[in-house]
């Protein structure tokens, strides 16, 4: 919303500098910035007078001019324009002026004659499109003055309004704000109109079908007007607030809307069939062409203004091309009405058509004084700028008056909400300045009648806000001491996630944060087989679905990094994944997951260690670490069935529930990326981990006695699973076996035989009560070996 300072000054005396006023308005909730509107030319463009013009001796189309640019300075300027003549006042760009970033005026020789500047055409100064000859200025321009001094400028406030303040989409509204903020008086003009025409009842009639959608409709008629260009003052006002001047009728209508905030419409009266107005909802499928020449298909929720046969306007939104005022219009009907905000908003949304008019109606206009004032104001203004006779009387259909509400404010409430006491007289002053009528003023309370141009004010709390925003938004004390209520429920999830993050950061992983909006294809590739949840109004097809796993996001991040030739990529991300679930109230089920991705080597390239590519066991190690940290046992791994091509996968289970997966993608999956190493990813559901974690950690007594280590190496069939042997050892190791690790594994056809495999285990025995003896461990080892022999055919190596 733009308001012009000089326009405001018609109603109120403003003493603050524009910047100061903008700051005050901003503090009160009208975020304002100051702009200077108007045309300007580059520096060093001055008024000159052509003294003489002679033909250039060496060029047909050029003339050599002597130009007086003031201070008795006479310049020789070569000019190419055909309209240059002696005695003309002209804009002269002096040497050193910069007409465009790449166009600086210099002293130059043109066909042998030195030229000291340029006489300018309109387009060269950025003032218009005219290039046909130089600009010739009025004779009263003073020689030597800067041309800029003659160009008109306006100070305009750009106000960024919040949607609760439709009243401030007008100069009147802003004037009331200024009056309240700066404690000054304002006055709006009284309107006198000269009704010299026929009786309006004899000319037209109005019929409203639905009084809820259109609670009030008023009309006046003006006959024998002349549609023409607007007078200068009107044009200037309209253009200063960023509108385009069309003709006197349209401009007058826009002028009144910008002045009072009430949108109005003028119809060409002679184009109205039956000379009548009917307000009704559209029939479903009805067609209508608006003034922007778009043919629109209407639904039954669109409110229409119609004549006796057909629609002539989308009520409160836009007029129709058929009934538009044009240069042949003689008689007009002026509409000033109040439409239900929700109806206008719905219509505007349905047609995807937002106009200056619909923006005001949907936020709420004034059905009472402003509506009538605006009707009379526009009628009078049309009469003033277009002549004609105003019909006697006004048709006003308003069956059920919308009354002003009376709202009571307890003075104590202000203190209660803000912690600040405000003078009662000041509170009263604020409401009066804002246009409220005081109906009660006692020791404890003030009651006000809320003008209907303030639809945002209905309750006591709204009055509190009015007082605060005008008086004291910057005066409310900042307490350095706060009373707090502390809850016993301490969140455990965030610390849990924080420690998982720390774990990965410590292991050299980089945390990513990815867009949760992905393509449907990506969502369908998710590892959990969730039904993807689609977005009805996506930004693009690439982002029309919510992600169903983290791995797809990480693979996308991988791509960016590989294309930039980053090496040894280790990523992790914690975030929500979303599944369509029609039984839930939101239509979705959300899961909190951890995704991990690695490609590259355990150690980067270095001078000593020969580094190995990261593999699946690296990830199993991470899972074990996390599980151990949070006391989660019973983790099992099972090969995943039906996994993608070019990949192998193992599922992670806790108590029969699949909580995650480790997947190895072969290089061949990423043919375009030319990877050096396979990509290994993992995803774990953290909701489950969080639930299953050991919530209370307890101290376990530690042993004070030394441990005994024993190694055993066996040869078994390749088909046997290491996990089974480990379990067998643990089952038979007795209570003092505290750890078993596999420290060697190899395959060698010649030494071990075909399809054989060698595994070496190291067992650690330790007792909490005593030092163990070798011979008792020998017995256990023998038992273990016998079990391995009988159950797995293991041979000692």
């Amino acid at each position, binding site marked *: 919303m733009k308001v012009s300072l000089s326009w405001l000054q018609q109603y109120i005396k403003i003493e603050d500098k524009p910047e100061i006023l903008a700051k005050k308005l*901003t503090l*009160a909730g009208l975020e304002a910035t100051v702009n200077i509107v108007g045309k300007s030319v580059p520096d060093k463009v001055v008024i000159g007078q052509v003294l003489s013009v002679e033909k250039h001796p060496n060029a047909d189309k050029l003339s050599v001019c002597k130009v007086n640019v003031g201070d008795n300075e006479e310049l020789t300027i070569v000019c190419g324009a055909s309209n240059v003549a002696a005695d003309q006042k002209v804009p002269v760009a002096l040497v050193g002026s910069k007409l465009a970033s790449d166009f600086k005026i210099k002293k130059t020789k043109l066909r042998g004659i030195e030229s000291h500047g340029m006489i300018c055409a309109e387009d060269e100064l950025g003032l218009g499109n005219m290039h046909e000859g130089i600009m010739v200025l009025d004779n009263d321009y003073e020689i030597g003055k800067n041309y800029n001094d003659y160009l008109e400028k306006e100070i305009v406030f750009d106000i960024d309004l919040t949607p609760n303040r439709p009243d401030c989409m007008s100069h009147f509204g802003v004037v009331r704000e200024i009056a309240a903020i700066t404690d000054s008086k304002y006055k709006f003009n009284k309107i006198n109109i000269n009704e010299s025409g026929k009786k309006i009842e004899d000319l037209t009639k109005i019929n409203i079908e639905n009084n809820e959608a259109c609670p009030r409709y008023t009309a006046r008629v003006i006959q024998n007007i002349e549609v023409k260009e607007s007078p200068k003052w009107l044009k200037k006002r309209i253009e200063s607030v960023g509108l385009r001047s069309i003709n006197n009728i349209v401009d007058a209508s826009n002028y009144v809307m910008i002045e009072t905030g009430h949108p109005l419409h003028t119809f060409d009266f002679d184009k109205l069939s039956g000379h009548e107005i009917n307000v009704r909802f559209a029939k479903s499928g009805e067609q209508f062409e608006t003034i922007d020449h778009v043919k629109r298909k209407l639904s039954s929720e669109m409110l229409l203004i119609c004549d006796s046969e057909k629609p002539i306007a989308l009520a409160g939104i836009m007029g129709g091309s058929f009934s538009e005022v044009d240069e042949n219009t003689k008689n007009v009907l002026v509409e000033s009405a109040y439409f239900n905000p929700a109806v206008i*908003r719905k219509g505007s949304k349905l047609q995807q058509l937002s106009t200056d008019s619909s923006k005001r109606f949907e936020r709420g206009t004034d059905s009472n004084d402003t509506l009538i004032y605006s009707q009379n104001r526009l009628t009078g203004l049309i009469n003033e700028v277009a002549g004609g006779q105003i019909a006697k009387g006004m048709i006003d259909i308003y069956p059920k008056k919308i009354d002003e509400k009376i709202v009571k404010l307890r003075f104590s409430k202000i203190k209660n909400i803000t912690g600040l006491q405000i003078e009662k007289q000041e509170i009263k002053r604020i409401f009066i300045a804002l246009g409220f009528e005081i109906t009660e003023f006692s020791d404890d309370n003030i009651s006000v009648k809320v003008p209907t141009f303030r639809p945002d004010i209905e309750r006591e709390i709204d009055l509190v806000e009015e007082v605060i*925003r005008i008086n004291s*938004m910057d005066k409310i004390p900042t307490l350095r001491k706060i009373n707090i209520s502390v809850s016993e429920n301490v969140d455990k999830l965030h610390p849990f996630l924080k420690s998982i993050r720390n774990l990965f950061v410590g292991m050299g992983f980089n*945390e990513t944060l990815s867009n949760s909006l992905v393509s449907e294809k990506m969502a369908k590739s998710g590892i959990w087989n969730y039904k993807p949840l*689609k977005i009805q109004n996506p930004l693009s097809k690439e982002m029309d679905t919510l992600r169903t796993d983290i791995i797809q996001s990480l693979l996308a991040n991988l791509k960016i990094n590989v294309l*930039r030739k980053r090496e040894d990529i280790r990523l992790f991300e914690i975030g929500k994944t979303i599944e*369509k679930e*029609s039984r839930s109230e939101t239509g979705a089920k959300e899961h909190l997951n951890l995704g991990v991705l690695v490609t590259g080597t355990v150690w980067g390239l270095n001078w000593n260690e020969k580094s190995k590519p990261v593999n699946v066991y690296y990830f199993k190690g991470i899972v074990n670490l996390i599980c151990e940290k949070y006391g989660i046992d019973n983790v099992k791994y099972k090969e995943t069935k039906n996994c993608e091509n070019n990949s192998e996968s193992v599922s992670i289970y806790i108590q029969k529930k699949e909580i995650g997966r480790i997947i190895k993608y072969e290089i061949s999956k990423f043919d375009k990326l030319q990877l050096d190493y396979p990509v290994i990813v993992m995803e774990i559901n953290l909701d489950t981990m969080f639930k299953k974690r050991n919530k209370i950690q307890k101290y376990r007594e530690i042993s004070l006695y030394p441990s005994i280590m024993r190694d055993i190496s066996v040869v078994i069939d390749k088909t046997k699973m290491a996990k089974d042997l480990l379990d067998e050892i643990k089952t038979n190791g007795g209570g003092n076996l505290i750890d078993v690790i596999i420290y060697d594994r190899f395959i060698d056809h010649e030494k071990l035989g075909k399809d054989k495999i060698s595994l070496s285990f190291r067992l650690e025995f330790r007792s909490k009560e005593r030092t163990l003896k070798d011979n008792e461990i020998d017995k256990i080892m023998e038992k273990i070996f016998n079990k391995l022999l009988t159950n797995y055919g293991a041979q000692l190596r």
Partner: protein
Amino acid sequence: MSIFDEIGSVAENFHNKLDKIIDQEQIVDLKNKYLGRKGIVSNLFSQIGKVAAENRKKVGKSLNSLKNELTKKINEKDQQFSVSEEKSKKTDYSLPGYSFNKGSQHPITQSIDEMLDIFNHLGFDIAYGPEVETDWYNFGSLNFPKNHPARDMQDTFYTEGSGILRTHTSPVQTRFMTKNKPPVRIVAPGRVYRNEAISPRSYCVFNQIEGLYVDKDVTFSDLRGTLDMFCKMYFGSDVKLKFRTSYFPFTEPSAEVDVSCFLCDGKGCRVCKNTGWLEILGCGMIDPNVFKSVGYDPEKYNGFAFGLGVERMAMLKLGINDIRILYENDIEFLKQF
């Protein structure tokens, strides 16, 4: 000179020379000179025939002990040198250490942690809500009437069925209050979504932290105090705060908070667009209609709420001027944090 004297002077010369030795090459020379086949010691042995027979045994004995002593000394010296040589071969301290991959937490989750720590410090607990919301929690319960232009303040994504992607973390307020009796004092971090074109200044996904405090006698002064403390703890104790009237359907009065530009100390710079102030968050006193929608008595309780954009705050603090780099996840970028 008797042969015994000769043996004595050989030993003495040897020891003098041995002391002056500086490298292994000289040891080899010395060894050849004394213990070589034609060396000094072997020369002495060859003279044994000339010695009187009764002394021969004695001379032989002392020659043998000389030979043994010299051999021992040379070996010792040799050992000394090879040990030091091996030592220097083993540890070249100028070689680079192993390169550990530099792990890093994303700047946004780091900022969230930092902010939550401050709020924890100020007595706020953490609460959560879903990212896919109902119209009621995202709008209705927060006093956004149906068909009201206030809904246009936040461009909304609608999901299949009747869900919407939450446009702010404010629904956590009403979800939490619906389930808990006052007093409540929480902060709620999380992702929010806006249907806005992606540009250097806006992204369709970002993170917010919502704050909520409801109790008897909570005033706007408490709100100012809380946010003042938070901003000073987060941006530095020199910053000043400015509250401007604004509008949010779920708070009344509502305010936008500007913090004095900590990059130029409020003098005016490119980042604050020469205003000296940075717009950082929105806040206000909870609207009575919100209390009604969760079953709290607005005559009995007051409360304040605030919401801040994590990306905006973090970008200001870190000097990042394009939000998209945060969601691109180039490890060269991530490793900086």
